[in-house]
């Protein structure tokens, strides 16, 4: 079978497809050709699969919550079933449409299919409202894969997180399906405002009171039984994923810690300004910011994408702090985009190379100093 896909074989153009299927089942049997003669068992498949595992708590909870939001009284089994049949098509469409784009580029550009897509293809549906039309998912993921990733050289060379590019595309191209109060629930007759929308709905009052009078307690929002995107509502489930990512060191804890610190600092700053302004959102506490909207999901799973984030340890702190602070700033100051985390991370991605540039210059200066000292 293999020779057909090798160089000069009749299906040699499809070699990336063969490589993908082949290595899916068996680890390549290649041996080291040069020193070091031994290698760690880690590979890209295992690394990316670990991210998928980390996404599972949020996804499973999301499935349940999707059903729960459609009909809270139907019982757990019914909720899970409803949610499953609502979320599964999103994921399938995302994987199939995005996978085809990925495969097409792999064949044209003659590179192997990168496992990073497994993560991108799952991240996107988890950031979408559950009743989004499927063709939008397909359009979004195609845009994310092609424009967000392949045009700049493919996995490893992308400037932005491809899943976020896809989400931003859907958000700006079809705002009617991505915002407002009716999109977050499967049942069309139900309107459910997300806590962030509630908090920004009335001016000149206290956001925390608004949120709690709409029936959202901190505890409820932490657990996640609230309207919102498929995977982003449950801070609790996302934290479980964060623990997996940090324990395996697949995601860098500095980015998460930095984002949290940046968010807390910015939120406290906003709090001190609150009495002087009519802006309700200024009065939201850091805890509210943490449990409301996509902050936790974005920081844990999106900002930590190692390729589009800063690639130095010091840079990761700065990058994280920047994202946390920007998120609060966008939420508070620009209420057309109450869901600030998406834009905050995209802006963070934009600045990441520049942050690295300065860290690099500092490293060079430090070395020069060590040279002078000896």
């Amino acid at each position: 079978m293999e020779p057909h896909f090798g160089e000069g074989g009749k299906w040699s153009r499809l070699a990336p497809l063969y490589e993908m299927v082949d290595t899916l089942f068996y680890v390549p049997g290649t041996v080291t050709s040069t020193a070091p003669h031994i290698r760690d068992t880690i590979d890209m498949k295992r690394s990316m699969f670990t991210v998928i595992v980390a996404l599972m708590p949020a996804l499973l909870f999301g499935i349940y919550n999707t059903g729960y939001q459609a009909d809270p009284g139907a019982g757990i089994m019914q909720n899970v079933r409803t949610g499953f049949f609502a979320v599964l098509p999103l994921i399938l469409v995302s994987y199939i449409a995005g996978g085809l784009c990925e495969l097409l580029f792999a064949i044209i550009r003659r590179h192997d299919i990168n496992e990073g897509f497994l993560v991108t293809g799952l991240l996107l549906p988890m950031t979408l409202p559950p009743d989004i039309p499927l063709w939008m998912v397909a359009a979004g993921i195609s845009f994310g894969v092609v424009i967000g990733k392949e045009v700049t050289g493919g996995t490893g060379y992308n400037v932005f997180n491809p899943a976020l590019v896809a989400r931003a595309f859907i958000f700006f191209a079809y705002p009617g399906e991505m915002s407002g109060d009716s999109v977050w629930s499967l049942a069309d007759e139900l309107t459910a405002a997300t806590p962030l929308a509630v908090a920004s709905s009335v001016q000149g009052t206290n956001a925390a009171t608004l949120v709690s009078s709409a029936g959202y307690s901190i505890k409820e929002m932490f657990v996640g039984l609230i309207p919102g995107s498929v995977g982003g509502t449950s801070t609790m489930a996302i934290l479980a994923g964060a623990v997996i990512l940090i324990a395996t060191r697949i995601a860098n804890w500095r980015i998460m810690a930095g984002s949290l610190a940046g968010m807390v600092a910015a939120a406290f700053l906003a709090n001190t300004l609150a009495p002087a302004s009519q802006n309700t959102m200024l009065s939201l506490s850091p805890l509210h910011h943490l449990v409301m909207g996509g902050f936790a999901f974005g920081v844990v799973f999106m900002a930590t994408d190692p390729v589009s984030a800063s690639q130095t340890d010091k840079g990761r702190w700065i990058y994280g702090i920047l994202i946390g602070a920007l998120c609060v700033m966008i939420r508070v100051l620009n209420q057309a985009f109450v869901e600030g985390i998406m834009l905050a991370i995209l802006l963070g991605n934009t600045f990441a190379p520049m942050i690295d540039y300065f860290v690099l210059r500092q490293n060079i200066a430090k070395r020069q100093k060590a040279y002078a000292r000896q």
Partner: protein
Amino acid sequence: MDVTRLKKGHDLAIAGKPEKRLTYAGRPAWLKIRPSDFHGIKPRLLVKEGDHVKAGAPVFCSKNNPDLLVTAPGSGRVATIVQGERRSINEIIIDLDRSESFETFETFSEEAVASLSSGRIKEQLLRSGLWPVIRQRPFSSVADPDRLPKAVFISTMPTAPFAPDTDYLLEQDASGLQTGLIVLKRLTGKPVHLVTGETSSNTILASAKHVVHHRFSGPHPAGNVGIHIHHIAPIRNRDDIVWYIALQDVLRIGRLFLKGKLPVEKIVTIGGESIEKRHYVKTRQGMMLKDILWDNRLEDNSRLVSGDVLTGLKSLPEDPLGYYHEIISVIPEKTGRDLIGWLMPGLKKYSVTNLFLSRLRNNQGARLDTGMNGSPRVMVPFGNIESVLPMNILPTFLIKMILARDIDEMEKLGIYECDPEDFALCSFVDASKTEIAEIIREGLEYVEKNG
């Protein structure tokens, strides 16, 4: 004394550690010299097939410096000169005499050495052919006799897998150590840095004179000389030269001056799970691996490596022990393919990362073979490679600049301080299976040629 404590790195838990038992390799019939072992020397042959050479007699010299000699490690007839492409010299094979004769050099007492001039020492080292044991950074080439270094480094705390234990080596025979150190001090007039492990209680080393003592601790590569140089006297530019010598070679330099003949013996370790007897062997320069392993059995499907498993050279039994190598490693060759590796819990899969269950038992029972364990991919900076490099160097960016062939940026990012052996663990842990150590080697070769 200050201890430099390093945290980054990894001590490989690899099976087949050599026992502390010394055996003797018998007298071989043949010896081989490989010019490719001597980085930086373009060989010009001084013998032809059929010539008879004494041990310590010149075999070839450097085209750039006729004084820089490589001499015969034993006396005998030059049997074959194996040539490769474009008349390069691959191997010089010597048919060893039954009773060997040695070139004689002047002998000195330890006190007499202390008053020798730098020029006289250099002359003796060059003429005997022992000079090439001294290597220089940057570029890890044989030291240039015409350019003195700013410092000399000797590491006595090897952390590489199966490396010979310093205390055990000195227990066997420590003669020549102090003389060797004095020679180096007199030769260069610059500080000779002797680096020992934090926990070392070796009195011979501790009482060594004419050296600057340092202590280091930490996992591999904390014992590599490149790491010591980085933390003690970092290399600033391509003309900022540092010399380094293996401990056994310091002893040999001492013995050359004390006894007046080329010392050709050295002790090597044999390690790895695919060889029957794992121990220390007293062998000699230029011996074929099969002669060193004459009473030892290799398992089928094993890989023979001259040197350690992280930096050594894949070898055949007929290949000679590398000139600078002190370890022979034999590890299982990977056969077959593992089923759905990305999904399995991996209780027996070796990994530095926390992605497999084996980590819970610190990789005990996990085997290491020659498998790549994955497909090559574009690099994704998870931070693995940084976690095993105890240097103030940003490897991800340095690699990018090497691939871009940007000499200016490579220099700024510290390429001259780098050596492939210090980046071997980076290749080991990288998830994208990028040959990082090879890229560093490419970068060094590129700046050496074009810088």
